[in-house]
């Protein structure tokens, strides 16, 4: 695997839309060619080289390419979006849409990410050491196709509306979450190690939400069914199992109605 190192040299005046920063776009290119890739600042078409110094060389394919960004990218959007393979490591924060529609590979942000990250993600691994904003692993505005597959792990806290319209994959939040989790979900699994404010699993058709901490207000559309012992992300514990959202339609599979499930640690 070959490594390309990007170092921010100039803070953009506006916000940089850098969907070119992916192993797929870098693959097979030299540092000079990578510096010529297009990024948008507002309506201006700029090059990557105007904002980053580029060192090293990409591998022949995305899978053989690692991108390391050393510095703050809190005004850079779309890093690793739609990437299918390879690695991206950001030693700093990133802006919106980081890892959105990611299909494979590994994306590791050592700082925090803004909102709409991991949007509609289909596969791969996305790790965040800091916090994440709103709409993590959700669907794009208006769309009904949220996270489809893959894994997202956030060491810190997250904002609201995470995993809206989630259809698959796993999201692990080690800190706390704000309101609205897995709204409209039709699949997938969300694990929250900390606390949640309100409205977990609203209008959820299918899928699993697992909570280790407390919830301020429980959704009225959920019904307690039993206590169950489960191993979740390496921790064995007893959980209360609820089904819901009973106000929503639920499909039948082999004669049995499929519900969304909410587990709360005893």
């Amino acid at each position: 695997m070959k490594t390309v190192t990007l170092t921010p040299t100039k803070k953009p005046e506006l916000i940089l839309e850098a969907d070119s920063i992916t192993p797929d776009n870098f693959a097979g290119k030299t540092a000079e060619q990578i510096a010529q890739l297009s990024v948008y600042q507002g309506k201006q078409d700029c090059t990557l080289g105007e904002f980053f110094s580029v060192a090293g060389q990409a591998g022949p394919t995305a899978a053989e390419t690692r991108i390391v960004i050393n510095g703050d990218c809190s005004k850079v959007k779309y890093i690793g979006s739609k990437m299918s393979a390879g690695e991206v490591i950001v030693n700093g924060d990133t802006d919106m849409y980081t890892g959105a529609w990611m299909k494979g590979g590994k994306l590791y942000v050592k700082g925090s990410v803004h909102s709409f990250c991991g949007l509609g993600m289909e596969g791969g691994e996305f790790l965040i050491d800091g916090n994440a904003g709103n709409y993590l692993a959700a669907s794009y505005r208006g769309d009904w196709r949220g996270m489809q597959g893959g894994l997202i792990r956030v060491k810190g806290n997250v904002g609201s509306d995470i995993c809206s319209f989630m259809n698959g994959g796993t999201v692990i939040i080690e800190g706390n979450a704000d309101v609205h989790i897995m709204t409209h979900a039709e699949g997938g699994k969300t694990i929250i190690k900390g606390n949640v404010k309100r409205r977990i699993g609203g209008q959820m058709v299918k899928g699993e939400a697992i909570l280790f901490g407390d919830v301020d207000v429980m959704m009225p559309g959920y019904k307690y069914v039993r206590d169950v012992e489960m191993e979740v992300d390496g921790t064995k514990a007893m959980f209360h199992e609820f089904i819901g959202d009973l106000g929503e339609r639920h499909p039948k599979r082999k004669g049995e109605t499929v519900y969304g499930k909410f587990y709360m640690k005893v």
Partner: protein
Amino acid sequence: MTEYLIKNGHVFDPVQGIKGDRKDIGIKDGKIIGASEVSPSAKAIDAKGKTVMAGAMEIHAHVAGPKVNVGRWYRPEDKLFNSCKISEATRIEGGFSIPTVFKTGYEYARMGYTFAMEAAMPPLYSRHVHEEIHDTPIIDEGALPVLGNNWFVMEYLKNKELENSAAYCAWLLRQTKGYGIKVVNPGGTEAWAWGLNCLTINDPVPYFDITPAEIIAGLIETNEFLGLPHSMHIHGNNLGNPGNYNVTLDTLKLAKGHKAKNTFGREQVMHATHLQFHSYGGDGWGTFESKAKDIMDLVNKSPNITIDMGCVTLDETTTMTADGPFEHHLTELNHLKWANVDVELETAAGVVPYIYSPNITVNAIQWAIGLELALYARDPMRCFISTDHPNAGPFTRYPRVIKWLMSKKAREAQIKAFKNSDKVVAATEIANMNREIGLYELAQMTRAGPAKALGLAANYGGLAPGMNADVAIYNLDPAKMPADPEGIEKAFSAVAYLFKDGRMVVKDGAVIDHGQKKTFWVDVKVKENKQVMHDVREKFLRYYSLNEGNYLVPESYAPHPYVIAIDATS
């Protein structure tokens, strides 16, 4: 204005019966002129090895107005990843199945279209329709107000008051700057306000106690009483359900015995739209099959009927129709977001996104039915290409539909790509159909035919001297048709040149001029009718949410009108 001489192109013009002969065409002051009359200073356009046709005409698409806009605002995801850089001549474009007004105009022009008929204008919201029409560049447009569930119309027709129905329709066309009479799920949309539907032409409409059959026949008579340029334009009952072909046959039979009365050369009394959605056999989704042959056998025998296909293009799209109950039915099937609107005394509408997937057998059969209709059609002057944009697919897929119609090889490749191709083949006839539509037939289906059906044949849809200079030139050599059918799709996606009203608006597939678009509407003069004017006043006072004085679409909403005036007083 620049004079042009289009030289050495292969001309296809059903109006003059020209079938690909090499012929020069002159353009002067917005009109076609004979090549010999062109002055020496005219700009020559080399069309050697290219196909020359009149500008194409769209007879049925949902391109402007409130329900299109509902689609735009509640589907931001339709614009995701498809915005593009602006060029020097164009403004920003966006959207796939529900493009912005600018993209709508540009995309039609890039494909060689110069006219589009907005297929369903809710009269109460006609100002919105005209605002969008005015903002859509290049192409001429008209709009058909929906009248099949209108309280006035249902009451007059129930009482057999044809003259009152005609006077009301004439009043409404003038108020809304409308082009003709559109009927959507007659009676069924009104029934939807009661949570019901009319699934056959004999189901009584709640409260009004009239049947869809009476509404359809009554509006055919109303249309011919007024002598409108276009015929009654119908989206029949029970759209989209297995086994609905019987209802469609019943509907088509209502045209029998009626004769077109007009001064525009129109021969049909009924235009049956997006017939694909109405040609289904089977008694459930498991036994779903094509009944295109049964439908087309009747259409072929009925010279007073025209149709358009409503071809499924296998895309993710946005369905939208004044058939309110159908959209509710659809959202129950696919569980995607649903918008529903009731339009007071007039109509309703619904919007639901839909994905036509090649992996779903029913969708693949729908694709086949749309194409079968056109391949069974004996008279291309009465069968027009449409996708019921955006219901069966976006209009930007016309080049692909044309490819499928013109090439059996392309159809075979698509059939092979279906997940359950054997099931699709068993439920349809498409695999056994060898017909390939030729360029002359294509010109009939997209130019001369729709122009005649819309009553515009005197000036549009052809290249005879004196006609409007709307000319499309394609990079397609009829003597050397591409071996790969993709070449056909490519050629029809981007014209080499498009002239609109004698101005070059597209060159090498790129829009270079916004042209001078016009709004077509029909102004019918009828005898003074005190009864109808009294009824209008009373209904506005008692039921409408606005005053009668605020209903009219002012001239400023259609500042470039093309008004067709008719005197129906005698």
